């Protein structure tokens, strides 16, 4: 019981760490880091589900009966590359915010917004 679900629990702990960073930290770069931890935990979740005991990597070869499930691998493979592209977009936004506000701390940005209004 404990071992059977251990992977999923680690995934949840990682996911919550990422979630905590996103909601509790004010620095935008730190938030992006939190998001990517969250993202990686989802990757680990999918790949864990795809694993079959005694299975081998899903590349067809003679003499292998049991393969891991290839479908989650495909999904995650593309998700990683899409993830870096969106992360880059987020970082680009952070750079522009820094230029416009002179800071990437959430509180200071809000303070400046309130002054303008």
């Amino acid at each position, binding site marked *: 019981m404990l*071992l*059977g*679900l*251990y992977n*999923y629990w*680690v995934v*949840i*702990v*990682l*996911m*919550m*760490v990422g*979630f*905590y*960073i996103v909601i*509790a*930290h*004010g620095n935008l*770069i*730190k938030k992006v*880091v939190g998001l990517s*931890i969250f993202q*990686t935990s989802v990757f*680990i979740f999918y*790949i864990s*589900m*795809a*694993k*079959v*005991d005694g*299975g081998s*990597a*899903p590349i*067809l*070869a003679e003499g292998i009966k*049991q*393969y*891991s*499930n*290839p*479908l*989650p691998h*495909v999904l995650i*493979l*593309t998700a*990683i590359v899409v993830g*870096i*592209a*969106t*992360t*880059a*977009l987020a*970082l*680009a936004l*952070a*750079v522009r915010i*820094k*230029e416009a506000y002179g800071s*990437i*701390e959430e509180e200071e940005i809000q303070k400046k917004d309130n002054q303008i209004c």
Partner: protein
Amino acid sequence: MAFLVGVAFAIVRMKDLLAVIMLLGIYSLLSASFFVAMDAADVAFTEAAVGAGISTLLMLVTISMTGRSEHPVRHKPLLALAVVIITGSLLIYGTLDMPYFGSAEAPIHQHAAPRYINDSMQEIGVPNIVTSVLASYRAFDTFGEVVVIFTAGIGVLALLSVVRRREYTINDDSFNHSMHEQHLILRIVTKMMIPFILLFAFYVQFHGDFGPGGGFQAGVIFASAVFLYTMLFGTSTARQVINQSFIQLLAATGVLLYGSVGIVSLLIGKEFFDYSALSADPITGQHLGILLIELGVGITVASIMIIIFFNFVGRRNNLQHKENEGD
């Protein structure tokens, strides 16, 4: 796995963003080795190149523009902590019904996957099941992913693109020159490595049907070789080698190549992305189709990554020059 959790907690505590980013790189590398242990060679490949290489680099460039220290959190994080703990325990409660890790009877292994494993050799003729699912069975989804990457590249271009001014180039070169003399060993070793990295990228690109690899991985590996070159010889040299507008053209060409393979099979009279139409022999058609669209994916991913990196670095150089002028 325990390592991963340890690194993640360290990231929460750290205030220095440089250390945070380095830890994130370690975290990615650890998860890549976890993917190898889980038999997901293709995924591990991608994660190692993307997570430990490209994303670390992009974040470093970003903090060089935005400053590396984080302000201490002023308000009490108790509310956030409570939300996180409640969500976490609900999720753990949810896992109690999950099938155990590694069991072959889990529902996920019952539907769709057996067909890919059993029939893909007859239908596609490619040993790597991941490639045949990615490029043939689910080609339409993958097309969507490529378009998303392309769009993100355009977004970065729109946000960060700068008009380059000529007079800065001389400054830039002299700065880089002094840096190179300081790091002689680094420069020579990296110079020797770059051709091998490029060669490896091509191997991964064209061998993706038979072993782990494919367009996505090849694209990021190729891009990381270009990044290395840029770091060594400076942006202005790299820009002379790789023309920005040419790279933008390439990015669009990759997507176009991918899409047109689908259109061609549609015009011949089969379904969108049904490659068996491309040749008299269905298996040869599949091979040709997969080769072409993997090429499209590789070109797009590599050039989008290069565009993103160049724009970040170009922005940074511009900022530095502005500051120098201000002084």
